[in-house]
């Protein structure tokens, strides 16, 4: 049923009345537009626009060019890219495997509900608490550390300072990347029709043949899409790093936080906005790729 029929169905006369009817309908979205305008659209414009100004309020490309050249900002940015790249791969592979493992189980069973709930919580919920969870486990008095120390005084897990640097941050990030990948990738794995497996087997193909010729190629776009989503998730994260790293700004979100709040380290509002602009550009790029991939995938899902 086409929408124009609906709008026409209720109107009394011809085009004149219908024109006004449409105009009044636009009022319906006004409240939403006001709220979204204030709390979402204006801040975005504020950030993008403000990056092109200097401290004195004059138009200037000063911050745009300086931030790339300044080690103090370029290095955290590189770190952000690195950590996002590695944690999305690690979380992606493990999450995808876990999705496969669960998909072969009972659908709608208790285990699946449990896992989806856990995934939902961990993917959304509080980097601060996650950081504390890792302190409690891998920190000096953590139970893993204590166990490791009993095995040997010098093994890696027995001395927990690895936790408080880029590597440790990566491990904690991977913790919440895995459930996110699981949630995103599960529908793709579930869409692998068993008929394809049966067809492959009836043609004499082994499990390896099935996976390498049918399974993986079909899953690949979704897998890649999942990786991209994980990349953005890791790149944008702030809370976990803020809780784990109390001194220094080793990734860009921390750099932005410092530029927003603190006057030491050459901070200012345009700096925060410039750094934010760079972040947004990367995120939009990745999300655009993701969108393209999803369009390809939806073809398979039909």
């Amino acid at each position, binding site marked *: 049923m086409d929408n124009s029929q609906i709008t026409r169905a209720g109107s009394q006369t011809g085009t004149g009345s219908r024109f006004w009817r449409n105009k009044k309908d636009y009022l319906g979205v006004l409240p939403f537009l006001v709220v979204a305008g204030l709390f979402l659209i204006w801040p975005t414009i504020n950030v993008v626009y403000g990056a092109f100004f200097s401290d004195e309020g004059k138009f200037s490309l000063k911050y745009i060019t300086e931030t790339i050249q300044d080690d103090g900002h370029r290095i955290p940015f590189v770190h952000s890219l690195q950590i996002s790249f590695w944690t999305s791969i690690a979380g992606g592979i493990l999450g995808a495997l876990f999705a496969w493992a669960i998909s072969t189980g009972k659908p709608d069973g208790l285990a699946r509900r449990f896992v989806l709930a856990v995934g939902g919580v961990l993917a959304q919920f509080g980097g601060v608490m996650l950081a504390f969870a890792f302190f409690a486990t891998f*920190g*000096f*008095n953590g139970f893993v550390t204590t166990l490791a120390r009993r095995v040997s005084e010098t093994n890696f897990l027995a001395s927990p*300072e690895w936790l408080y640097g880029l590597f440790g941050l990566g491990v904690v990030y991977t913790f919440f990347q895995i459930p996110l990948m699981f949630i995103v990738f599960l529908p793709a794995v579930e869409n692998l029709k068993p008929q394809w497996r049966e067809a492959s087997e009836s043609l004499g193909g082994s499990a390896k043949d099935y996976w390498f010729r049918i399974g993986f190629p079909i899953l690949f776009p979704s897998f890649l899409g999942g990786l991209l989503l994980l990349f953005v998730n890791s790149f944008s994260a702030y809370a976990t790093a803020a809780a784990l790293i109390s001194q*220094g700004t080793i990734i860009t979100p921390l750099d932005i936080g410092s530029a927003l709040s603190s*006057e*030491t380290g050459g901070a200012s509002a345009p700096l925060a906005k410039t750094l934010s602009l760079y972040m947004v550009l990367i995120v939009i790029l990745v999300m655009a790729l993701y969108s393209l991939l999803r369009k390809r995938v939806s073809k398979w899902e039909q």
Partner: protein
Amino acid sequence: MKLNQLTKPAVVLSVAAVLAVPTFAGTSANAASKADTWTSAKQAGGLKGLAAACKKEGQLNIIATPRDWANYGEIIDNFQKIYKVKIDSNIPDGSSQDEIDTANKLKGTKRSPDVFDVGTAVGYKYIDTHYAPYKVINWNQIPADKKDSQGRLTSNYTGVMAVGYDGSLGTITKLDDLLDPKFKGVVALNGDPTKASAGLNGVFMTSIVNGGSFDDVSKGVAWFKKLKDTGNFINVDPTPATIESGQTRVVFDWTYNHKAVIDKFKAVGKVWKTYIPANAAVGSFYNVGVSKWAPHPACGRLWMEYVLSAEGGNSWGKGGASPVLWPWMIKNKTASNDAIAVIGSGTSVAAGASVDQQAAAVTYLTANWAAAVGTR
């Protein structure tokens, strides 16, 4: 589902929202009360008048004031008890720079801090912009070099920089002992030296030990770089939580902060030791000032009066910090025995870097610290 059935949950939610109104009942910003022009207690009608004005304001906002820092807990409790005013303590583990930054961020709101407790380096950077001039009742008892001439910042208390550490690690007899592998991953400095006075003076002390001086902190930075390269130094702010968990078993911090840990450890049968390098006793006064845009200006000034009084001084003493009024308190015997038991009756304090030396050091550190210890 009929419309009626949908309205019921909507009504319940609306009622809940209405009940939430008291939590955000807008309190309009204070009309500028006369209190923010007072430059001494006399204009308030003496201490009593100041206390009455504060009671009317009803609250005091302090910031970066941990309870176990130089016995602040006792000072906070006593102030609340005596003047019947609620104290709101924001970001207890903040640095001096955090205090200024928060005041900037919250300027004009009722949550902005009323008083600052800032180190000399950070504090004096903002001497022209952030503080209201106010001379306490005991103004004349404070040496001229320990106060700003207009009373914008007044020295409050000081201590000595020391290395505190978990006694089960042995005994430290020289700073280079910390380069030993047994200290892997447990050595921390209290604060980023470009933002926190404790951090800055930790670097000063280390620099002096290694042949530097208040004019040259490069030797200190080099030593910390060495410590970082061995894997012993971690970029973590030591807090009561990190000390208790054992994450930071060696901490560069003021003696009065170590005192709190010594007491806590003793209570559970452990030992926290301190080490001050010979010929490298470094001290630095913290300074108190009322915020220029304090939402509770009378309470802010009352707080200044309290901490710069004999009673406040004795609390500092009990906490292991040396109050700026100590020579005066010893002379007129207002120093309590409890305080003397902790800090002794001597009136000399550890040497500290001048305002200019600290400013120069911060400039150097801003350029070199992050790269040296990997906070980037």
